[in-house]
Structures are given as structure tokens and as C-alpha cells.
């Protein structure tokens, strides 16, 4: 109900006044009223705009006065007082030299900044390597600046506690005492194998003086050539040098010719992978094919087209099986030989089908196929592979057998001579024989018999412990030498880039002192060069870094009698079970035979297959893992399958990850009376009953980097020189070891990450990669430019339709926007996973080593990393597959056009430059790490600590912790900023090298313009034709 409101009341009754003033209605009161009940305006006349600005200006001025005192301290550097000749400050010099190694001398070009070698490159004038180097050469420059290397020469003082103390003495004083000792006679030299011509000539002279000479290598690349030579009755070694450039079908019998288990990795990779360069469907038809039979999963096995897992004790039988098949098909064998071969191959019969198909394929390409046998395999396999290559007609085509020399003196004979008192004074040159042979030589006993032991080594290690004196060995970048490459086709110089940093001595100097030869190393090398060359200049030789040498091919020898001589017992595979395991011992990826165990770059570079850093593990197969788990339920080897594993959402892990840290159970490996302890790691792709151990770790006398890393497998070695051992069993200890694995997950989970197709698929659809993955069926972001070619889109369409100005890439605008647009392709068809790029990048870009603890926390710093995925055709839920294919994928910053990192950086520290590079302004970075989160490739790396400044074991002590040794700083590349803590870093596409090449190209163009026209070439502009336009080679 609506009731009408009351009518407004009229003011009736008494009138109230508010105050006396109100009553009076004075002006003062009215003013007060207007202020008390205003609508506001009259209140706001107090502060004028002018006075406000005045006040603010004064306060800003005061703030300025206060703040100007806050400046960071400036560091003053000093320029050269007098500039050395031929040296332009800031411009590096390059020298041709080579790295001596047991794999032959590796020709190098070394970059030197003001006398400090910083970076190693391959010497392109040695064609088989084509200017490439392996990972060890890349890392070798760090050894020069290793604070733990022997910084001089030392005399040993034994303490009662059994610990040795080393007193620094001058090298010359040791050499004086050496002369005295040598004069007493009964001297022997023990060294590892060398390809040095200088040493060869000196040793000959030493032998003439009655000094005995012995060689020992635990990873003996020359073993195969000796075995083959002996088996065939040749007096010399027969070195198999594959020429894979012309090979179309390759069968590898446990031969890791693309990895560190064989010597000629670089030439093999270059030539073999060259047969896999596919730019068009035509190339795909011509691709080579690789068959690998192996016990472990090597990098060679990783790129194999067909791979057979075979326990290492079955290799001889399998080789016989293949040889029987091959020799019968080629009619290269008579009945007796075939029967014998079949008998030998009986133990591998279950692989008959595989062998037949392989042989058929090898025979389909006569003279273009080759059989390679692993250098660690027994002489029977070497012999059979020789016979097969002979039958295939590949000798001289796809493989050469060249003559080599070898010394017969083994370490066993040395030990015997010492025991008999025939040798009383021992000089150990390099290597680390005590560490490698302690499993079968009692050095403690021997050292009591020895009157004098001198050791030449780059660091004080296990072998130094029996020596009276340790002579610090000069690094190869501090020495003169002359040596041969593995294929003996070229003589290369070793020339010093700097005088020895410490009071050290080279092997050549020591040997020449030993035989009492006068003169310095330089003149010795020069004289040797003179005797080898037909009149060419020594200076030219040093500049080019190579001199042709003629390797002698071995004449054809009929292998039949030698094969007939093989006893069936030698080919019989062991009966294998979880209690009767084969052990395969291989050189470690990180440490090789131990010589790189104090090299931080090598320790931190993940093993390409296992992805472990800082440790080695005992690799076992998934089948053996399951049996072990069944036998020892508490072993804790594999994680319980999760719900996601069972439902097939994600693949199961191959190890327990406890908070992201791999927890590996430690087992005892029992091999007769020899035993070691090692952490287990399940490696898909391994032969079921072969366990793989690696050398070079668990060293007792090593620098701070290698201290406490890995386990030592040398106690298993039995002195026969064989690296394949039989009859091992594993016994859990109940303990666990934490391993730093950089890749926890091995499966691609069906994501289109590495996009693979076989040759047929590629031929039918060359653009297959574009038709994979989510983006292939999601709307393009190009809008109207959708149908333009990629080149056009890249150069004309604004980035992601962004409102920002797009660089004008036309030639006319190149002054403003840059003539180049950089990109980098990595041909995954060519990648062998060698990881040399990882260390090369580390060396070039001053990337710090962070240590095992930080790798465990997921903070490794590599700008380029190598992702390794396993895939298998059939995978069953939570089962770990036994047969896997391996895909390697190098991942560095992609320098995305519409880079997700750039748009999220709040301070503009990462921006696109005019040449398409995703640049990182370190000194602008505040470290929000948003860019790294938003990077889909996870290639950005954050400096969680002052890696470069602080010692890796004292990172958590902050400013109280010790600073790094300044020796390491000498190896830093001055062209690249050394980053401090708290900032982000990532691949720059080596912008410093890009700039340098641009400047060089421009300077060259100006010079030639000046030469042509006689005018000043300052105004010259680069030609458009300088740019390549291939889709593949940018």
C-alpha cells in the first residue's frame, strides 16, 4: 500500500542560531562557514604548482649529492710498455702444432692471445680430419693451466705414515743426479706408446747405449695391428686404416670406429658420416649402411642402421659365423676352411639369420663394403676380419693395411727383469703404469728392488709414488716435437706456443739428456725434419703444420693357415648367466685411461650415452637388472613404476632419482680373486650378460678435480692385455652412490623433437619434418604471407606480426640493419654424439666448471648440450626396452625470431640485434631468470654462484671462501666476457667470431680494392654475392 508522504513541514517554532557570530552575521563568520561547509575549492590555494616544482627540484638535487658517491671500484689494466714484434694487442695469433696422443698426432691450429694459448682447432691442411679435432684435444688446453699439474720438479720424502711428501727441487739438479745414476748401468725406460719420430730416434740411440725400453698402454690401440701381424706371420704390425669415404656397407665387429675406443675416430667420422650427408632424395639413395655387433652401447652403435647386441665373449664365434657365410658366398674358401669356420661359429648359431642378411648386403656392394674388428678383440677376430676384407676385395678400396713398428718389451718382462736384478734403475716416461697395472704387478715389491726411479709426468700421480724424483713434464703447448698421424700419411710438428710456465722439461729433452746429446729440442726437431724432407723449408713446415710421409702397405698374405690354426676352444662363447658375466672394460669417455681425470671440462662433459658426469658407473643391461632385482629385492636399482609409467604416459626411469639425484646401488664385482666396487647403472641396449666397466677413474693420487670421482676398474685387469674378461658376478653391498646424471629422462614421449624418417619415407616426402608435431596442423602465424616461401617469410613478414619495427633485410638497407641474418643448422644425420662441440664451446666462451655437487642440483653451464634419446619400436608400459635406437640432438640457443625470452625480460637485457641474433647484455642482466623459464629449449644458463671466481668446493662459503687459482684465468678467452654471479648466459653463436670475420672480410675487401684501383678502399662495400643462399649452408 502506498501512503502519501507527509507534505514538507514549514519552519515553525523557535529559530535557533548556531553561534553568537551567526546571530551577528559578521563577515568573519561567513568566511568560517564557507570554509567549514565548502564544496572544497577554497581550501586548495595553499600550494602552488611553482612551489611544488621548486621543492621537488631541491629534493632531487639532494638525492643527486648523496648518490654520486656510490660507484663501483674501477680496475686499471696496464698496456704493453713495449710491444713485441708481430704482435698486435687484441688480435690473436694462430700457430700450427699438434697434440701427441696414443691415437697418433692430432694436427692442430692453436689460437694464442698475447702469448697465452686459449683455443685449439683442427689443422685443415690435414685432409682426413678436415680441420676437426676430438674432444680430448679440445680439452687439452685446460691441462696447461691446471693448478694441480706438477709445477716444477720434486724429490720424494717418505714419511713414517706411508704418505709421501714432495720437496720442490730444481729440474737441473735432478738431471745431474740422473747422469750419475745412468752411468751405473742397468737402466730401463718405461713409456706408453708414442707416434713421435723424435722419440723414436732418441730411443734407438738409448738402446744402443744399453738402456732397455718397455712400453705399456692400458688402452692399447696398437694391439690389433700387432696381433694381426703376428698371426699372419708378418714381422711388422699390420695397422688397419679404414677408408670409409668409399664404403657403402660397413660391418663393425665391436669396433667403435666413431668413438674413443678406436684410434682414428676423426678420420672415420669425417669419411663415414660424409656418406650420410643427405641434401636431396638423390643423396638418400646413396647413403651408406652400418651394421654393428657390440656388447656395450657405443656411439658407433648409436648411429648404426642395424645393431646386434652380443656378449663380448661370443665375438669370436660370431666373427667365424659371418666369415663362414661370407667366404662361402664369395667362394674364397675351400671346404676344409669352411668346415673349420662353421665349427668355430657354432657358438653363435642363433644369430645365423642376422649374419646371413648382413653378408648378403655386404656382398651387394663389392669393393664398397668393409668389415672392422674392434682393437680390443683377440687375434682370431682380427684375422677373420682380414680374411673377410680380402674376400670382399676391400683391401686398398675401403681399408688399408699399413706397416707399423712395435716394441716387444712388455711391462711383464720389465717386472721380471727387475725381480731378477737385471734392471736396477727405472725411468718412467709419462703414462701412469703403476695405476694401470696394479692388478697384476706388485709395485711395492718391485720398488724395493729398484735402486733409483725417475718419473717424468705432468702431475704427481700414482706412478710418482714409487719414484725418487718427479720431473714435471712440459705440456705439448710448451714443447718441440715431431710425430706421425695415425694413418702415417703426414708428419706434423709440435711447436711450443709459450715457454714452459714452470720449471718443467719435455720428454725429448729428458731423453737427449739421458743419452748425453747436446743441443736444444728446436734444433733436434729441425734436423729431423731436414732428414725427412727433400729440401723443403723448416719455416714453411711449421707454418703449414704438415709434411707428407709415405706409409707402406702390407703385401697380400693368405690368412688360411692362420685361421685353420685357431682352436675351437678359443672361439667358444662362455655360458652366461647372472653369476657368469662377461666384463668389458673400455676407456672412459671423461677420463680416457685416466689422463684426463683432472680435467674439469672432461669431467663435466656428459657421457654421450649414459649422460653421467664426474663419475663412471658399471653399466648393466635391463635383463640383468631385472634378474638382480629378483635375486636381491632390496638392491634398489630400479624405481617402482609410477601410475604414469603403467598407463604409458611416460617411460620408466632407468635409475632411481632421489630428488632429481641418481641413487645408484654399489655392488662388488667378483672376478675370481679380483674384485672392485662400483655403482650400477642400467643401460638399455647392452648385451644381456655383459657388464661394462670404464677405466680412468677412482684414482688415488690425482689433483683436486679428479679427487673422489668414480671407481677404479684396473684391479680387474689380469695382465693378459685383454679388456674382455669372463666369469664375473655381482654382489650388492647395500650402499648407494649419488651420480650426477644430466638427463633423467630418456624417452621423447612421442613428441616431435628429433624428427626422423628412413630413406624411403624421406624420398617420398622430403619435407617430412614440417609435417610432424603440433605446429604442422595448427594455424600458421604468418597471416596473409602463409603461402610464401620460408626465405620470403623470414625476410619480409614482421616477426609474429609484432608491432615492433622489423629489420629491412634488403641489401640497400644493410648499413642500418646488417647484411647478415644469422642462423645455424646442425645436421642430425651427421651427428655421432662425440661431444667435442660441448667442450669446444666451453673453451671458446669461458664457460665455467661447476662441479659434481652443482651438476646434481641441475646447474651445469654448457651453452650447447647434447640430448640423447632412446627409442624402441615396441615399448610396454613400465618395461625398460633392451633394444633401443639412439638419437643425438645438439641443442644450443636457437636465436628464435620471436624469442620468448626477450619479451619477458623486464630490463631489456636480452634483445634481438639487427642481424637476427638473440643477444645477451650481461651487464644489464639483473637475473630474474624469467627468460630461462620461458625458453622452450631450456638452453639458458644461470650463474647461481661466482663460478669463475670461487673454488667449486667453497661456493657455499660466499665471500669467506677461497678464490680460484689465477693460473686458470690465463686460459680465458679475452674476446668473451667472464660472467659474474647472478646473471644469465647462453649461446651467442660466437658473436665474437662473427664480428672478427666481418672485420677481416671488410679489411680484405678494402685491401683488394686498394690494390686494384690504387685508391683508398675505406668506402668499399661488401658485395651481395658474398652471401650464400643455400637452404642448408646459411
Amino acid at each position, binding site marked *: *500500500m502506498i501512503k*502519501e508522504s507527509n507534505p514538507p513541514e514549514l519552519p515553525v517554532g523557535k529559530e535557533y542560531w548556531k553561534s553568537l557570530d551567526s546571530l551577528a552575521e559578521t563577515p568573519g563568520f561567513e568566511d568560517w562557514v564557507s570554509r*567549514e*561547509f565548502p564544496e*572544497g575549492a577554497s581550501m586548495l590555494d595553499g600550494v602552488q604548482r611553482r612551489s611544488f616544482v621548486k621543492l621537488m627540484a631541491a629534493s632531487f638535487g639532494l638525492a643527486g649529492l648523496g648518490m654520486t658517491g656510490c660507484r663501483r671500484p674501477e680496475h686499471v689494466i696496464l698496456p704493453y710498455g713495449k710491444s713485441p714484434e708481430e704482435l698486435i694487442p687484441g688480435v690473436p695469433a694462430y700457430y700450427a702444432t699438434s697434440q701427441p696422443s696414443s691415437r697418433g698426432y692430432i694436427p692442430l691450429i692453436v689460437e694464442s692471445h698475447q702469448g697465452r694459448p686459449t683455443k685449439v682447432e683442427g689443422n685443415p691442411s690435414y685432409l682426413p680430419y678436415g680441420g676437426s679435432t676430438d674432444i680430448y684435444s679440445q680439452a687439452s688446453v685446460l691441462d696447461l693451466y691446471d693448478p694441480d699439474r706438477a709445477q716444477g720438479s720434486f724429490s720424494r720424502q717418505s714419511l713414517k705414515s706411508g704418505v709421501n711428501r714432495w720437496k720442490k727441487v730444481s729440474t737441473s739438479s735432478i738431471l745431474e743426479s740422473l747422469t750419475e745414476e745412468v752411468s751405473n748401468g742397468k737402466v730401463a725406460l718405461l713409456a706408453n706408446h708414442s707416434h713421435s719420430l723424435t722419440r723414436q730416434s732418441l730411443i734407438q740411440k738409448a738402446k744402443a747405449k744399453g738402456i732397455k725400453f718397455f712400453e705399456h698402454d692400458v688402452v692399447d690401440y696398437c694391439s690389433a695391428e700387432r696381433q694381426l701381424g703376428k698371426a699372419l706371420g708378418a714381422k711388422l704390425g699390420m695397422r688397419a686404416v679404414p677408408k670409409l669415404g668409399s664404403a657403402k656397407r660397413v660391418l663393425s665387429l665391436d669396433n667403435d670406429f666413431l668413438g674413443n675406443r678406436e684410434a682414428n675416430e676423426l678420420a672415420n667420422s669425417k669419411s663415414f658420416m660424409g656418406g650420410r650427408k643427405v641434401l636431396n632424395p638423390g643423396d638418400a639413395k646413396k647413403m651408406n649402411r652400418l651394421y654393428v655387433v657390440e656388447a656395450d652401447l657405443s656411439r658407433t652403435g648409436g648411429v648404426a642402421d642395424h645393431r646386434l647386441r652380443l656378449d663380448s665373449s661370443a665375438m669370436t664365434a660370431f666373427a667365424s659365423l659371418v666369415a663362414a657365410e661370407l667366404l662361402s658366398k664369395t667362394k674364397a674358401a675351400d671346404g676344409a676352411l669352411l668346415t673349420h669356420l662353421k665349427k668355430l661359429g657354432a657358438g653363435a648359431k642363433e644369430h645365423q639369420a642376422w649374419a646371413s642378411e648382413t653378408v648378403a648386403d655386404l656382398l651387394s656392394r663389392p669393393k664398397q663394403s668393409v668389415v672392422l674388428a674392434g682393437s680390443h678383440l683377440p687375434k682370431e677376430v682380427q684375422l677373420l676380419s682380414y680374411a673377410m676384407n680380402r674376400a670382399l676385395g676391400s683391401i686398398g678400396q675401403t681399408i688399408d693395411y699399413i706397416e707399423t713398428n712395435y716394441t716387444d718389451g712388455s711391462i711383464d718382462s720389465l717386472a721380471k727383469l727387475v725381480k731378477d736384478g737385471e734392471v736396477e734403475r727405472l725411468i718412467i716416461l709419462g703414462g701412469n703404469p703403476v695405476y694401470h697395472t696394479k692388478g697384476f704387478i706388485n709395485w711395492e715389491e718391485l720398488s724395493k728392488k729398484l735402486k733409483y726411479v725417475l718419473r717424468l709426468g705432468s702431475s704427481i700421480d700414482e706412478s710418482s709414488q714409487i719414484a725418487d724424483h718427479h720431473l714435471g713434464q712440459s705440456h705439448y703447448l710448451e714443447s718441440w716435437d715431431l710425430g706421425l698421424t695415425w694413418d702415417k700419411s703426414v708428419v706434423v710438428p709440435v711447436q711450443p706456443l709459450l715457454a714452459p710456465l714452470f720449471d718443467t722439461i719435455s720428454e725429448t729433452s729428458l731423453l737427449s739428456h739421458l743419452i748425453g746429446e747436446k743441443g736444444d729440442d728446436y734444433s733436434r726437431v729441425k734436423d729431423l725434419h731436414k732428414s725427412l724432407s727433400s729440401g723443403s723449408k723448416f719455416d714453411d713446415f711449421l707454418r703449414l703444420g704438415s709434411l707428407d710421409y709415405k706409409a707402406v702397405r702390407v703385401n697380400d698374405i693368405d690368412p688360411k693357415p692362420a685361421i685353420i690354426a685357431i682352436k675351437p676352444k678359443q672361439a667358444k662363447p662362455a655360458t652366461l648367466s647372472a653369476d657368469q658375466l662377461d666384463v668389458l672394460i673400455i676407456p672412459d669417455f671423461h677420463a680416457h685411461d685416466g689422463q684426463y681425470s683432472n680435467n674439469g671440462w672432461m669431467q663435466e662433459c656428459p657421457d654421450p650415452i649414459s649422460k653421467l658426469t664426474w663419475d663412471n658407473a658399471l653399466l648393466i643391461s635391463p635383463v640383468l637388472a631385472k634378474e638382480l632385482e629378483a635375486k636381491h629385492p632390496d638392491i634398489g636399482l630400479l624405481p617402482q613404476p*609410477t*601410475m*604414469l609409467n603403467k598407463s604409458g*604416459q*611416460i617411460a620408466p626411469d632407468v635409475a632411481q632419482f632421489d630428488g*632429481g639425484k641418481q641413487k645408484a646401488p654399489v655392488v662388488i664385482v667378483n672376478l675370481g680373486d679380483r674384485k672392485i666396487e662400483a655403482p650400477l647403472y642400467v643401460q638399455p641396449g647392452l648385451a644381456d650378460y655383459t657388464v661394462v666397466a670404464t677405466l680412468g677413474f677412482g684414482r688415488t693420487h690425482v689433483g683436486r678435480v679428479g679427487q673422489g670421482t668414480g671407481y677404479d676398474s684396473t684391479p680387474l685387469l689380469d695382465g693378459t692385455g685383454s679388456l674382455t674378461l669372463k666369469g664375473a658376478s655381482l654382489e650388492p653391498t647395500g650402499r648407494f652412490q649419488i651420480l650426477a646424471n644430466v*638427463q633423467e*629422462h*630418456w*624417452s621423447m*614421449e*612421442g*613428441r616431435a*623433437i628429433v624428427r626422423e624418417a628412413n630413406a624411403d619415407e624421406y624420398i617420398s616426402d622430403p619435407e617430412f619434418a614440417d609435417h610432424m608435431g*603440433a605446429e604442422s596442423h595448427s594455424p600458421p602465424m604468418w597471416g596473409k604471407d602463409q603461402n610464401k616461401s620460408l626465405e620470403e617469410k623470414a625476410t619480409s613478414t614482421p616477426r609474429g606480426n609484432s608491432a615492433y619495427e622489423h629489420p629491412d633485410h634488403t641489401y640497400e638497407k644493410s648499413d642500418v640493419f646488417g647484411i647478415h641474418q644469422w642462423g645455424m643448422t646442425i645436421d642430425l644425420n651427421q651427428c655421432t654424439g662425440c661431444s667435442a662441440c660441448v667442450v669446444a664451446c666451453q673453451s671458446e666462451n669461458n664457460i665455467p666448471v661447476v662441479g659434481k655437487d*652443482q651438476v646434481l*642440483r*641441475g*646447474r*651445469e653451464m654448457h651453452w650447447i648440450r647434447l*640430448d*640423447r634419446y632412446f627409442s624402441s619400436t615396441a615399448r610396454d608400459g613400465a618395461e625398460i626396452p633392451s633394444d633401443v635406437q639412439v638419437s643425438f640432438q645438439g*641443442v644450443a640457443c636457437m636465436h628464435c625470431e620471436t624469442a*620468448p625470452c626477450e*619479451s*619477458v625480460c*623486464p630490463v*631489456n637485457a636480452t634483445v634481438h640485434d639487427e642481424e637476427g641474433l638473440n643477444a645477451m647484455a650481461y651487464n*644489464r642482466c*639483473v*637475473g*630474474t*631468470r*624469467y627468460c*630461462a*623459464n*620461458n625458453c*622452450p*629449449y*631450456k638452453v*639458458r*644458463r*644461470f*650463474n*647461481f*654462484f661466482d663460478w669463475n671466481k670461487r673454488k667449486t668446493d667453497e*661456493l*657455499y*662459503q*660466499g*665471500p669467506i671462501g677461497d678464490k680460484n687459482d689465477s693460473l686458470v684465468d690465463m686460459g680465458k678467452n679475452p674476446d668473451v666476457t667472464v660472467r*659474474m*654471479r*647472478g*646473471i644469465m648466459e647462453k649461446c651467442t653463436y660466437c658473436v665474437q667470431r662473427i664480428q672478427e670475420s666481418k672485420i677481416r672480410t671488410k679489411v680484405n675487401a678494402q685491401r683488394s680494392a686498394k690494390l686494384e684501383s690504387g685508391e683508398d678502399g675505406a668506402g668499399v662495400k661488401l658485395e651481395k654475392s658474398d652471401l650464400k643462399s643455400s637452404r642448408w649452408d646459411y
Partner: protein
Amino acid sequence: MSEVKEVEEHEILKKVDPAPWKDVPLVLNNRDYKWVTDKICGIVESKTPTWWWWCFITALCIASFTGMGLVYLVSTGVGVWGNNNPVNWGWAIVNFVFWIGIGHAGTLISAVLCLLKQKWRTSINRASEAMTVFAVLCAGIFPLFHVGRVWFAWWLFPIPNANAIWPQFRSPLEWDVFAVSTYATVSILFWYMGMIPDMAVLRDRATETWRKYFYGFFAMGWRNANNHWRNFEMAYLLLAGLSTPLVLSVHTIVSFDFAVANLPGWHTTIFPPYFVAGAIFSGFGMVLTLLLPVRAVFGLRDLITQKHIDNMCMITLATGSLVGYAYAMEFFIAWYGANSYEGFAFINRAFGNYWWSYWIMVSCNVICPQLFWFKKIRQNTPLVWIISIFVNVGMWFERFVIANTTLSRDFLPSSWGYYSPTVVDIFTFFGTFGFFSVLFLLFLRFLPLMPMCEVKSVMPQADPHADH
């Protein structure tokens, strides 16, 4: 006047006596103005209780963990935390979002409820605003100190400098700088301005000289004059209007830190509303956690009544359900969107390496608040308090789930990792509760914890027509 025709009343209306709608009183027991003034001022004016000292010293000790953690962090490097690659943001950002979310209830209560003329807000808004300000202070610590070079953090501000480099305005972190600093400024202004009349009351009642000066200074010469009230109310209204969009904007922008990134599980448009709902949810959770003990300790049952608790419980229920809906919708869209990365991100959230955190989150945020449907539970104050703690825990885990599950397993399986906090992470975060408590205890001790004037305005006495 026109004649109004009497309409005959309907039959039924004669029979029933419609009870007049009567609001539940907001102040119980017929208290008068003086009681309110004495009660609130009495808390400040009485002798410092012993329990306060114990709490304060404990809180101070806990707060020192944050201090020590930060000193260690800045002197040594971000590495002392557990962050890694791929999880570049660990607890720091989780804590930041957690604290900033808590701050939301204060503004919502003071601004939005003010504009909506929700009278029940008066007795809780001061404490909530204080909570907001302190929570924002706690929140600010983390984004500031999580950067690698904290001494250059000022580069995020658009200060003209010699390098002529400006911040990057496309970055959500840059938006954060403005959003959070604006929010902090407005919250502090709002809080302080609302306190001026009460400060004047305290000044006028003060007997000690320091109090006279202290409150006198902050009362800014308040004379209770008509024009003061007039300006006060206008300014209050303006600030309420200004803060209302901030309630939405701050957490929207905080959610952009994730939503603008291109990672599966982050790059979703649902984030802004979902984050705002979550923030209000966590804010009310925290208000309950704080005010229920305060109510008990200071005997404020007449001022913070069951009606207040009911209302807060119901808002918690509503926003908790909203958040639950968002969780479900995320899963639906992940499936419906048919992007395999997105699909995996969500399956991984619930069943992957951090499954436990997901289920803690769901049980605390979605299941727990459903108990508030029952009046019995809403009336059981200890239980309400326990549930409010669960809400706080749940909301911390929500941010943990979002930040960590996505980062630890994104596009490339080769880079998948796992994040665990270090002791420094844990202590630094734990310390912020001490820091928060220190500030809140000081607030309780020295500032009027309820706006007396506003409370009085919703009492029957304030309404001249209350009786008819």
C-alpha cells in the same frame, strides 16, 4: 491532493502478521558508544600484557631467519636456494604469490564491501587492511631478492639513466613492479587514512606525553570538524573506488607472470579470474586465522559476531568453490584443447612427480571449505580456525603446484628435472611469518584495531530512526 481509493486488503494478509525484516545486530549486547571507545582504546592504552612480549620476542626471532637468509643469499648467490635449470623459479615466487594473495582480503573488505554498503565489514576492515599491508611487505621481499643481482633491482623502475635503457614494458615482471607498488601505496594510504579519526581519539584520551605526540602527529590535527568528516568521507569513498579495480588488477597481473609465458600449464586464459578468486579465498582464510584469536584474546565477541564469522565463512566457501571449478576447467580445457604438451602438463600435475602437492592443494582448497555449508561447523569457532589454516596451506601449495610442476617437466623431456628447496629456502620463508607477526603484534599494541567511528556508525544509536 488526489483522493486515494482504499483497496480492500487481501484475505490472507489479515491472517498473517508478516514479521518485520530485522537485521541481525552487528554489535551485540546493546553496547553503547562509550563501551566501544573504551574497548578499542583500552587495548592500546592498557599495560603491555606478558603474553604480548613472549609472542613479540618469538616472532622477532623467527623474523631474523629471513634476515639471515637474505644476508647469506645476497653475499653468496642465488645458488643457496634450491633453484635450478629447468626450475628457475622455486619457492621465492611461490611465496611471493602466496603473500600477495593474502593481501587481497583487506582491500576487498575495505573497498569492495564499502562500495557495496556491506555494514558488517566495519569491525574487521582495519585489521584486514593491516594484514594486507604487512602481507604485501612480506611479498615484496621475494621478487626483490630472488634476482641474481639485487643491487641492480632498481633497473626495473623507469628511471632515466645515462645508458638510455628503459625497462621492457612487454614483460609481466615489469607490470608486477607497477601493480605491486601501486597496490602497496594505495593500501597503506587507505589504511592510514581510515585510522586518522581513531588516532585523534587516542590522542585525546592519552595521558602520557609520548602518546600525545605520537598519536597527535599521526592524527594530523584532526578536530572532528564537520569539514574534516566531510573530506574524510569523500576521500574514503574515492580511495575505495580507486582500490576496487586494484583488487582485480594486482592478482591478474601476478597471474600474467605465468599466463604470458608460453609453458604448458601456465599459458592459459583462465589464470586471471582464477588467481583473483584464489587470492580472495586465501585472504579471507588469513583474516579468519588472525581475527579469531584476536577476538578471543581481547574479548571482542560483541564486535566480531557470529554473523561476521558466518559471512567470512561463506565467502571462503564461495571462492573455494570457484577455485575448485577453475581446477576442473583447467583439466577440461587441457583435454579439449588437444594440445599434447598441455594435456601432459595437467596429467603430470595430478599424477606426476609432484602429485602429492596437487592432492594437498585439492583437499585443502576444494574439499575443506565445503564444510562451511553447515551452520554447525560455521558456529564452531575452533574448527573454523583450523579450516582457515588449511586454506592457507592449500593456497601455498596451489602456487607451488603451478610454478613447479610446469617448470620441472616442460617441452623437452631431456631437460626435465626436479626441484627441492634448501634449508635456506625454508628458513627464509618461515621467517616471513615472524616478520608478519612482528608487524601485526605492533599493530595490535599501538594502533586501534577497529575503526571506532565506523563501528559506531553501524550501531543502532547511529540511526536516528532506529526505533521506527
